[in-house]
C-alpha cells in the first residue's frame, strides 16, 4: 500500500514532457520557449532516475547529472544569444525575427 508503482513515475515524466512540447510549439515569446525546453529536460531527468531505481544502478543518476550540466551550459549560451537578438531587434517575439524566411 505504501509503495508507488514505477509506471506512475514514468507517466508523470511523459505528462511533463508533453506539456514541454506543447509550450515549445505554441508559445511566441522566446524566453517561454526556452523554459519549455528546460521542462522537457526535467521530465527526461525524472525518467532516468526512475530507471536507475528500477535496475538498482547509479548510472541513471550519472546521466541525470550530465543532462543538468549540459542544460546549464545551454541556458547560459542561449540566454546570451537572446540578449544579443534583443539588442538588435528590440523584440522577444519569435514571429518577428523571421526575416530570413521566404
Amino acid at each position, binding site marked *: 500500500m505504501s*509503495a508507488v508503482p514505477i509506471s506512475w513515475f514514468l507517466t508523470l515524466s511523459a505528462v511533463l514532457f*508533453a*506539456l514541454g512540447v506543447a509550450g515549445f510549439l505554441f508559445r511566441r515569446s522566446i*524566453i517561454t520557449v526556452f523554459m519549455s525546453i528546460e*521542462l522537457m529536460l526535467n521530465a527526461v531527468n525524472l525518467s532516468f532516475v526512475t530507471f536507475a531505481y528500477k535496475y538498482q544502478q*547509479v548510472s541513471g543518476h*550519472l546521466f541525470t547529472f550530465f543532462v543538468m550540466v*549540459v542544460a*546549464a551550459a545551454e541556458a547560459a549560451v542561449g540566454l546570451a544569444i*537572446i540578449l544579443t537578438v534583443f539588442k538588435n531587434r528590440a523584440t522577444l517575439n519569435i514571429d518577428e525575427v523571421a526575416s530570413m524566411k521566404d
Partner: protein
Amino acid sequence: MDVVLFLIFALIAVVAAINVVVQTHPIASAVSLIGVMGSLAVLYLLLGAEFIAAAQVIVYAGAVMVLFIFVIMLLNAGAEGKTGRSLMAQFLGAPLLVAFLGVLAYFVQRLFPDSSKVRFGGFTGGSAQAVGRALFTTYLLPFEVTSLLILIAILGAIVLGRKELD
C-alpha cells in the same frame, strides 16, 4: 505514506507545468518552473537519489532559473500579446492532448506491470559517495568532456554578452 507524498508532489508538478505553458507573463512562467523543479527534487528523494535531488535544487532551481529571472528582469519582458489563432485549434487542442497522454499512460502501464514498486529507502546507491565513485571511474571521459563544454559555454556567453568595441 509514499503514495500520498508522490500524489501531492506530482500534482504540484503537473499544475506548475501547466502554469508554465499557460501564463502570459514570462516571470510567472519562471516562478512556476521553479515550483516544478522543487517538486521533482522531492520525487528524486523518494526514488533514493539524494545527491541528484540536492544538485537539482542547487544547480537547476538555484542557478539556472536565477539566470532566467535575471534575463527577464534585464530585458523587461512584458506579457505576450494575443495572437489570432483559430477557435477550433484552441478547442480541439486540450482534449487531443489529454487523449494522447491517456494512450501513453495506458501503454506505460502495460509495459511496467505493478510488480515493480518504489518504496522510500528501496535504493541506497544514490549517495554522494556512489555518484562520485562512478563519476570519477566509469564516467571519467564524459566528465572531462562536460567540463570542456562548460568552458566553451563560458567563453561563448562572455563573447556574446560584452559591450561593442568601436
